[in-house]
């Protein structure tokens, strides 16, 4: 359940926080910046509770793993998080539990304003995370690295990620960019309830980096729910389904791939370019971004990865 939970946390957040505008990135930076001004440089956060799984990943990636004392109900990466106390998530944060862990930094969702207020009143530093594009992810890594006193590691992680993404960009440069539909979910066993990435957000940006042309790039929303007709009309050349769970048994995989066969006129179906990708790293807006981008690039441009 946790894997599936993380499966589309990002994509669904996109829906919930649909109004997440570029301005929010500035907010995140401002709150950190403000705190930087208010607190002495030595007061790094030694007890961190994180309600946001991808930010938890970032904490571990920058070396602050030992400072994490509480995680959300949906955390499962890295494996160390599995033994940490769970404090709820977006809908059901367990404030009592959080307080009992005596944190000096709590990472919450940007929409949990009441929670923010509660912690602020209790004198506990709060970092509100708002979901946006790749740059926002990198900035968040830097922010949490700095808050936990791992600035250098944070900068290194960001540098590595950037060069990873740049490398991918370079590899696919000049290759024709296929019209790609990035499917984030649909009803099992059928083509109902399909929803895909839209022209905004970090998944869209990853697709762009990986050398794909988002078939819904003109729709400035983070997710799109296309009808069968829309999919036929848009005629994507490649369809990539992203699942954050584990790969299912072969017969299920075959059946799930086969549901696309009813859209015979879609080029992706005719040329057998429908890919089903499985892995928890695929939609984690965190340090494994690069791996996700590479996975996309490998299916979009297999010829440059021989």
């Amino acid at each position, binding site marked *: 359940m946790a894997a599936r939970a993380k499966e589309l*946390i990002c994509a*669904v957040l996109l829906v919930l926080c649909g109004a997440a505008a570029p301005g929010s990135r500035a907010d995140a930076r401002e709150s950190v910046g403000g705190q930087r001004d208010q607190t002495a440089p030595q007061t790094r956060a030694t007890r961190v509770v994180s309600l946001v799984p991808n930010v938890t990943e970032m904490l571990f990636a920058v070396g602050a793993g030992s400072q994490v004392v509480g995680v959300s109900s949906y955390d499962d990466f890295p494996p160390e998080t599995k033994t940490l106390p769970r404090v709820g998530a977006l809908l059901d944060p367990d404030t009592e539990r959080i307080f009992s862990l005596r944190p000096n930094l709590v990472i919450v969702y940007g929409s949990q304003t009441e929670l923010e207020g509660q912690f602020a009143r209790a004198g506990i530093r709060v970092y509100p995370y708002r979901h946006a594009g790749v740059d926002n992810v990198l900035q968040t890594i830097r922010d949490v690295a700095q808050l936990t006193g791992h600035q250098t590691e944070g900068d290194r992680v960001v540098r590595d990620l950037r060069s990873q993404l740049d490398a991918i960009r370079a590899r696919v440069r000049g290759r024709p960019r296929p019209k790609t539909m990035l499917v984030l979910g649909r009803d099992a066993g059928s083509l*109902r309830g399909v929803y895909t990435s839209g022209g905004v957000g970090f998944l869209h940006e990853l697709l762009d980096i990986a050398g794909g042309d988002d078939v819904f790039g003109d729709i400035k929303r983070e997710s799109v729910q296309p009808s*069968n007709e829309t999919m036929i009309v848009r005629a994507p050349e490649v369809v990539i389904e992203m699942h954050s769970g584990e790969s299912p048994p072969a017969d299920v995989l075959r059946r799930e791939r086969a549901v696309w066969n009813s859209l*015979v006129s879609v080029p992706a179906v005719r040329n057998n370019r429908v890919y089903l990708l499985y892995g928890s790293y695929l939609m984690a807006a965190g340090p494994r971004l690069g791996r996700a981008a590479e996975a996309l690039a490998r299916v979009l441009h297999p010829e440059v990865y021989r």
Partner: protein
Amino acid sequence: MIRGRLISIVLGYGTLAAGACVLAPLVGSTHISLARAFDRSIPFADNVDAQIFFVARMPRVLTGAIVGSTLASAGVVMQALLGNPLATPFTLGVSTGAALGAVLAITFGSNLAISALASVPIASLAGAVVASVIVYALATRPGRPISTMVLLLAGVTLNAFFSALILFVQYAADFTQAYRTIRWLMGDLDVGGFQPIVAALPLVLVALGLFAFLPRSLNLLSVGADIASTRGVDVGRTQRLAFLSASLATAAAVSLAGPIGFVGIVVPHLVRLMVGVDHRIVLPASALFGAAFLIGCDLIARTVLAPVEVPVGVVTAMVGGPFFLWLLVRKS
């Protein structure tokens, strides 16, 4: 006299419904040419117009016809059974039961589908059946007529209880599941092919077939249960048949396309305004008009804000709400 009226009205509304089925796939956010769609010389896989017509729109229109006709006629039967023109197919809890089944399948069901049918439609059908059985058990005593008051109370209670359960399950669900639940609750005629339609068809046909036995008895029943009895109506049997068939119809429709509101109450009222209140005419006319109505609403849903699609339940609500306001104003 009534035979003539019945035939002409059924023919008229039948033409409307058939026309809607045939014309609606032609219209949409993308322009297609009928000539091209039916041009046999172009291979089917290459013929985008044909693809749009047959693969994308036709199943949708057929689903709209099936769901529209079943919900509208179930609404008529429910209104007669409860003796109340404000009753809907969802009044006695069938759709809430379906919703609970769907929510449980979405939240706790694995991603594996059972044979050709995905788990959500089956779970929602099961939920609808469970809800109907509970209401039936609460409201009936063997051999005695059903008290409509008790039936209504049982339905309302079940609605409240199951709604609370749904909220509880949603609270325990994660974002994806909550989102998928909301989408299901909005209703969707884009069922993704002909298979779900074929699966739902037997239930629908059985329910519509059972409806055929009801109209005259419903006329008498809606004047009064006792007086109907003295005129030879087996009140208990009529009530049970009405409840069973309306619940079956609603369960089939909701498990196919989700709970699409307002069809079951707007269409019967509109039809009564046009053809009078004799159930022998209202029931078939509502079924036919309901098909055309939902196809029309879906047409609006997929074209008005293209390329974004409005959920069809929103369109039926936007049509239904003002209609009822107007009815209210007219009555007072």
